[in-house]
């Protein structure tokens, strides 16, 4: 795992090291230049102060400092060397006048030649001496800087620790929580760098809290709704148990069967609703021939409708290909028709219609049933809401499922009572939902 502290330490010490190295290099360069000037001047002075007579001994005070490794040679005008000091240093033979750099067998030399009367004087010094002196100066300059390393490391360590304290606090706060505590984290005294993170975390917590609360409500509602058919089942089972005559037993068992199929329907609808929950079930978006689907649904329900004395028919089916979840759309269609079948008394009529309009695609199921009281229209799509006094056994989930599937397709569910009586349920898909594959299917 990458630690901010280590990363910061590496970066800071690295830049410090580069800074010190740069300082050392510059100091060395400057010191060398200064040393050159001083020594060149000294060499000039030395040459000037040599006795013009080569034979006179060199003044002891004038003897070159052996530390400085200065080599002096003197030639007479015939080219004969009449004086030489420290010749063992391997000084090059050079008789050029003025300053020059000379490469010798043991390194580079600074050489100064001058004409003194009849003699030629040459003063040479190895450059290594000058370099050493410059390096010494540079080292002495940067030595105190090196002390900065441990001091800076320590300070960085402490500063990072101090700066990260709020993170530790937030971590502790998160760790102490159990899964049910989704209240926002304390966001007050936080540095500007961490506050957005905690803010984003709080946003997520709020969304989670909302979705968990919705889920919890749904489970509670579902459990509550399951109680009613279960109560009926238990009563019917007990009635069957204590039936005294064959007739009573038959009645009780047919009641029990009806109770079972009702419970089954509710469980099936609950499952469908859970599956249509956003993100609950991955479903592929495909191009769906909606008109074919509508035709199939109408023929699937035709027998059931005829048994109940209802006239179910397809009024119009424009050729439409929609981008959507095929299974979900089939459930939507099935629920709309099933609803109409359940709540329309015989003799009655149910018209299904699929058409393309300026608003998009309209899927409409009209029935000749009792409709829904205007006051209850906005509520019937709520989960488990059932219109008061409804005799028909229903789960109260049909329209909630339709609503959910419609929303997933960007469509709206519109419910209205028809002027001639009955309910008109219309799902309007936006034009954007029309598949670009239209015509190729």
């Amino acid at each position, binding site marked *: 795992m990458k630690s901010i502290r280590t990363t910061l330490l590496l970066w800071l010490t690295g830049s410090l090291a580069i800074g010190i190295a740069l300082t050392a290099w510059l100091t060395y360069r400057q010191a060398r230049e200064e040393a050159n000037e001083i020594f060149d001047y000294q060499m000039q002075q030395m040459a000037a102060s040599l006795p013009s007579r080569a034979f006179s001994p060199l003044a002891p005070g004038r003897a070159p400092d052996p530390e400085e490794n200065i080599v002096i040679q003197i030639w007479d005008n015939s080219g004969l060397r009449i004086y030489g000091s420290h010749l063992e240093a391997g000084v090059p033979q050079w008789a050029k006048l003025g300053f020059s750099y000379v490469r010798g067998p043991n390194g580079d030399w600074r050489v100064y030649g001058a004409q003194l009367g009849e003699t030629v004087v040459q003063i040479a010094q190895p450059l290594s001496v000058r370099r050493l002196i410059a390096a010494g100066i540079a080292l002495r300059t940067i030595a105190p800087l090196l002390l900065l390393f441990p001091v800076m490391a320590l300070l960085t360590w402490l500063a990072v620790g101090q700066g990260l304290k709020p993170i530790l606090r937030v971590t502790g706060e998160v760790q102490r929580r159990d899964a049910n505590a989704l209240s926002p984290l304390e966001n007050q005294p936080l540095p500007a760098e961490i506050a957005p993170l905690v803010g984003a975390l709080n946003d997520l917590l709020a969304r989670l809290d909302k979705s968990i609360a919705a889920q919890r409500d749904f489970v509670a509602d579902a459990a509550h709704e399951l*109680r009613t058919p279960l109560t*009926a089942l*238990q009563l019917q089972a007990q009635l069957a148990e204590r039936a005294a005559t064959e007739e009573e037993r038959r009645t009780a068992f047919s009641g029990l069967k009806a109770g079972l199929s009702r419970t089954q329907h509710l469980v099936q609808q609950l499952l469908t609703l859970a599956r249509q929950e956003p993100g609950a079930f991955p479903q592929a978006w495909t191009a769906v021939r909606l008109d074919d689907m509508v035709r199939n649904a109408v023929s699937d329900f035709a027998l059931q409708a005829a048994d109940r004395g209802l006239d179910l028919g397809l009024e119009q089916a424009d050729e439409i290909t929609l981008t959507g979840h095929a299974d979900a759309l089939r459930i939507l269609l099935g629920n709309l028709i099933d609803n109409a079948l359940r709540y329309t008394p015989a003799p009655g009529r149910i018209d299904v219609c699929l058409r393309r309009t300026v608003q998009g695609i309209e899927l409409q199921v009209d029935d000749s049933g009792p409709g829904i009281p205007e006051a209850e229209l906005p509520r019937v799509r709520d989960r488990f809401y059932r219109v*008061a006094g409804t005799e028909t056994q229903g789960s109260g989930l049909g329209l909630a499922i339709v609503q959910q599937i419609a929303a997933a397709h960007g469509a709206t569910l519109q419910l209205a009572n028809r002027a001639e009586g009955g309910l008109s349920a219309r799902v309007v898909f936006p034009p954007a939902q029309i598949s670009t594959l239209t015509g190729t299917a």
Partner: protein
Amino acid sequence: MRILLVEDDSMIGASVQTALQREGFAVDWVRDGIAADTALTGHAFDLVLLDLGLPRQEGGTVLARLRARRDTTPVLILSARDTVADRIKGLNTGADDYLVKPFDLDELIARIHALLRRQAGRADPVIRLGHIAIDPIAKTTLLDSEPVTLSAREFALLMALADHPGAVLSVAQLQEKIYGWDDEVGSNTVEVYIHSLRKKLGTGLIRNVRGVGYVIPKELSE
């Protein structure tokens, strides 16, 4: 014993009605809060089985209005609302008992008998009237420790009178107690049953108060 059942679910309502009728109760069944109100203001019931989540008017409102009319009819709430808070609220509104759905039929019947006993001011589950012992739960009648066979209607009529010894009940009141709305009632059937009961249990048990109705003398219960 006449019971008003207030339940909007048709399957549950039909089952409870059938079961209680087999127990010898006259059961009237309404499916919403307004109908319950109407039934309770127009008729006398020995007990009310009340669902809470009702269309048109909440069960709690029906109960509150009943108690506001100073009606002391025992009320047993049958509800899917199972939290302690719900039960406390129901009882504090004036209910005598609270049963959570799904419930056991036998428990429901036992609780109904317990409530009826309490309403009559009895603790003994067996009603003793002189030489006669009536067990409303087993639906048996003993005369000098010998079992007597009674028809369901005869037993219901005997129970109606035995529940409140000393109270004179008119023929119309007795009819209400043994017949539900849906039952066919023949004229003078009550008199026929009274005659039959007297023959089986002795003439001293049920007395006629001329022009008023019938009564079981209070001193028999002491």
